[in-house]
């Protein structure tokens, strides 16, 4: 693997015209990955998801350089539920940007890799991403600008994808008092790839980011998302994760509440079947006074599926008056399903309000009887109860248009 990695690393760098400084950084990152390799279950953060084992058993020959030319955009993947701006990634390359609803002077786009500010020594996967990314997009929303329409980032993979590993990175800067509604939508037709996506968000004073990540189409890919979120004074980060389609996902959110009155909301649904395996891992760092975080994760597991939620709330000594909350509820619908919940509270301040809760169980037989006695089939009754169970996480979505879109996607009608 390492040999192929080094060959591909050189090929990638030959194809890019990078500054010597960037190149040096990439080499450092490559070495960091080479030293550690893919994370395995001996690492505390990976004990429920042995990525090394998952990659080894699903991907035969690892390769890292995708030298295919761009593919035509299949417009049928575009959603028609509401008007939106678009950025389309196909096999990790930017195939289209459409910001026609916006004042283009207010949005600065950069694709120059020399501008990539690599997140340092987070973990080997972020290092791998830093070392190998072919394309990168950085978007800066100027001060006090609120986008007129949501932005959808389409993450498309196709059968043309040559490499088995794909890295890409998105960076979004929200300047003071600006706002953005962002939807990331996966659409995969490549098979058995490892897709490593790093996203970095800087949310400045009074800015609001609503970030909805949707992975609903069934596919055999293995995905790792690393989301880093920095929050300044009085800014808001609202996140919703709909984790359903891929074979494996680990979605990691590292959220730094750096200044007073900033708040972070992480709500999500994990809905799995067959032998799917999804994890949501959060680190919420309260570094300043009067900061707030709220997390609600609902999981529904069928067949042999495995769901994991590791939620950590860290409260620094300075972060008095912190309000931190997390709740995880799981429905295990089959004897062979597995759910692992690991709540962690690490608190160094004394005047804080923090709580967590975790439940798991099956559907209530009496409720099924009640619904069936009204003429619903067993299947219909279960679906109604499952959707009802998931609904309160969906109800946390504050954007009505997107909430309805996700409700439609789940088959909940009104």
């Amino acid at each position, binding site marked *: 693997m390492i040999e192929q990695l080094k060959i591909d690393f050189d090929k990638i760098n030959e194809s890019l015209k990078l500054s010597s400084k960037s190149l040096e950084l990439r080499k450092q990152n490559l070495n960091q990955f080479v030293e550690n390799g893919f994370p395995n279950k001996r690492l505390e953060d990976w004990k429920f998801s042995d990525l090394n084992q998952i990659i080894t058993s699903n991907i035969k020959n690892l390769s890292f350089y995708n030298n295919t030319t761009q593919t035509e955009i299949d417009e049928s993947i575009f959603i028609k539920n509401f008007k939106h701006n678009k950025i389309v990634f196909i096999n990790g390359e930017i195939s289209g940007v459409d910001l026609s609803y916006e004042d283009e002077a207010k949005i600065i786009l950069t694709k120059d890799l020399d501008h990539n500010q690599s997140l340092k020594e987070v973990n080997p996967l972020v290092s791998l991403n830093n070392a190998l990314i072919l394309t990168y997009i950085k978007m800066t929303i100027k001060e006090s600008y609120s986008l007129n329409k949501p932005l959808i980032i389409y993450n498309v993979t196709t059968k043309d994808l040559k490499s088995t590993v794909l890295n890409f990175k998105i960076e979004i800067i929200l300047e003071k008092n600006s706002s953005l509604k962002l939807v990331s939508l996966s659409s995969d037709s490549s098979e058995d790839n490892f897709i490593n996506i790093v996203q970095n968000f800087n949310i400045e004073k009074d800015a609001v980011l609503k970030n909805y990540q949707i992975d609903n189409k069934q596919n055999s890919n293995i995905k790792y998302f690393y989301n880093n979120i920095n929050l300044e004074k009085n800014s808001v980060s609202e996140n919703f994760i709909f984790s359903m389609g891929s074979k494996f996902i680990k979605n990691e959110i590292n959220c730094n509440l750096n200044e007073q009155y900033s708040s972070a909301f992480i709500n999500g649904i994990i809905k799995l079947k067959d032998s799917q395996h999804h994890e949501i891992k959060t680190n919420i760092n309260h570094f300043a006074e009067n900061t707030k975080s709220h997390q609600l994760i609902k999981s529904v597991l069928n067949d042999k599926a495995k769901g994991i939620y590791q939620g950590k709330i860290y409260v620094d000594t300075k972060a008095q008056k912190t309000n931190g909350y997390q709740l995880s509820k799981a429905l295990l619908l089959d004897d062979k399903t597995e759910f692992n919940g690991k709540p962690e509270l690490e608190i160094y301040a004394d005047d804080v309000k923090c709580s967590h809760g975790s439940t798991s169980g099956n559907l*209530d*037989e*009496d*409720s099924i*009887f*009640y*619904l*069936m*006695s*009204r*003429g*619903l*089939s*067993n299947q*219909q009754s279960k679906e*109604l*109860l499952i*959707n*009802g*169970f*998931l*609904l*309160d996480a969906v109800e946390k979505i504050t954007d009505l248009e997107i909430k309805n879109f996700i409700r439609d996607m789940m088959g909940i*009608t*009104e």
Partner: protein
Amino acid sequence: MLEIKNLKAEINKKEILKGLNLEIKPGEVHAIMGPNGSGKSTLSNVLSGKKGYDVSGDVKYLNENLLDLEIEERAHKGIFLAFQYPLEIPGVNTNIFLKTSLNAIKKAKNEKQLDAIEFLKLVKQKALELKFDEKILSRQLNVGFSGGEKKKNEILQMSILNPKLSILDETDSGLDIDALKIVSEGVNALRSKESSFLIITHYQRLLDYIKPDFVHVLIDGQIVKSGGSELALELENKGYESLS
């Protein structure tokens, strides 16, 4: 309409119904009274198909063997159980549930399903008749409903689904006198030559409002005495002790 012969039911190896016989003809209202633990709720559960019981005996419903039918098939063929303790179903909107239920039954009967507008018209009219606040219907099913609202909701469902055989399991329990009147009026409005009722109750009070054609006394899993509506009054005065 319903003919029960030698019905036995046990749960966790404990026999609850010990050879029960009962016949209900179209248009009749039967009341079953009995002390705690006599098997009243087991009877209603067994008739509506709840799992977990070992059942034997013969139950003919509209010339079919009722015990062979699944829970939802019984509902499709016109059996309705008003629950003693209606369940709270979080995240399920009451209106959506009612429409899903009505259309599931209509579909099974090969009848035209109602669209949203037709349904709302029907539900508004029924809610008005039962003096049921329509706003409640946009809330989650039974979640946070008062005891009275839950019972009224059962009767509303009954009146929308228009069943042939309605089983009311202690519908009067937990109701104040005003709610009891409204619920009784709702039941009386559904009485017809084609529809029958089996009313299960502890107390005679409900039977002041819904006048039964027959009253049966259930003690220790068997019907020990049957009579007309006057039997309810007699029980009220003398208690069950006199019969056991």
